[in-house]
């Protein structure tokens, strides 16, 4: 039950994009087409789950026993950067079409604050390894959901007559605001 609560809370109630403001850059940048938004979401989820597992192990098996918690940030970001590199090589080897579809967004996952935010939050909330697993899957799916919804709306927007100053990022922000308003409705879920 507890695991389910963590999962739903990460995916909907505390949605990473719309209520915690993590991963806004890809949310604005990659949400023009549903296809690429979906691939991006899956890639981020994938990196999130692995990164959360590895950083959890590093934090609890290396940093805590040696009293090196002060190195938390440096250690985490290095792990994430090398992990993204590894995932990139892996995907290129296993599935070339997927690699081509993701293109530049794959290396950019390193600077996606949702990944580092997830790793830090898991430590902050004192989750054990199973809880971290569910937390990261929930967060990743929530991110994908927000991205795909946004992409769907933006595809429609292309046909709409928007005031000149609001074109581009401004209208995206306003729409994200209404989406965030809608997602607040999930707060009563648990």
């Amino acid at each position, binding site marked *: 039950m507890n695991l389910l609560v963590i999962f739903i809370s990460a995916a909907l109630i505390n949605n990473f994009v*719309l*209520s*915690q*403001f*993590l*991963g*806004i*850059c890809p949310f*604005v940048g990659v949400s023009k087409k549903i296809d690429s938004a979906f691939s991006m979401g899956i890639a981020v989820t994938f990196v999130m789950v692995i990164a959360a597992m590895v950083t959890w192990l590093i934090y609890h098996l290396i940093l805590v026993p040696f009293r090196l918690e*002060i*190195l*938390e*940030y*440096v250690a985490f*970001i*290095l792990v994430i*950067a090398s992990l993204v590199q590894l995932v990139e090589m892996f995907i290129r080897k296993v599935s070339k079409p997927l690699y081509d579809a993701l293109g530049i967004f794959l290396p950019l996952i*390193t*600077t*996606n*604050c949702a990944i*580092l*935010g997830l790793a*830090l*939050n898991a430590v*902050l909330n004192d989750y054990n390894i199973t809880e971290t697993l569910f937390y990261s899957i929930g967060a990743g799916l929530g991110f994908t959901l927000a991205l795909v919804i946004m992409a769907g709306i933006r595809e429609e927007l292309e046909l709409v007559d928007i*005031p*000149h*100053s*609001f*074109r*581009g*990022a*401004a*209208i*995206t*922000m*306003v729409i*994200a*605001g*209404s989406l*965030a*308003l809608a997602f*607040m409705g999930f707060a009563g879920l648990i």
Partner: protein
Amino acid sequence: MKQKTAIQEFLKGLWDENPVLVSLLGLCPTLAVTVSAINGLAMGLAATFVLLCSAFLVSLLRKVIPNQVRIASYIVIIATFVTIADRFLAAYTPDISKALGPFIPLIIVNCIILGRMEAFASKNGIGRSLLDALGMGAGFTLTLLVLSSIREILGSGTWFGMQLMWPSFAAWKVMVLPPGAFLTLGCMIAAANWINTRRRS
């Protein structure tokens, strides 16, 4: 491109290349911490500190760092200064440190900082890099200050904790909640676009 004078190097960060309103960088902390003016200011100053120190070090080491590992090196440099800023805030202003929560460590992945390192500090001398960093930091801080002031005044009727609105003012609760951040920033970006188009024509 014509070489900019020192003062132009500083001023471009304030408006023409404003990191938030024009380049749309560093949106996550911008949206998340601007619930109250004091938080916005603290975040802006912390990011400026990291930006200045990292720009100094990156610019100093720009001939030493091999090209292939430059991004990783920048990130380690940035992460080091973020740790310093984080410990400093936790020691001297525990309340603010608590309010900003994970967004202080997240300065590491703030694209403004990495972007300036890659685009400017790694190619220019120390003096120019510091000016550029100072301008970008000031632009970031000012934008955060305006955004957080709007949100705090409308959302809680106060500014830096002082009561500003008349007593019967009904606070717009939505402004301090996540949707308010998106809506306010959207309007600010639109306003910046509008002013820029007006100036050009």
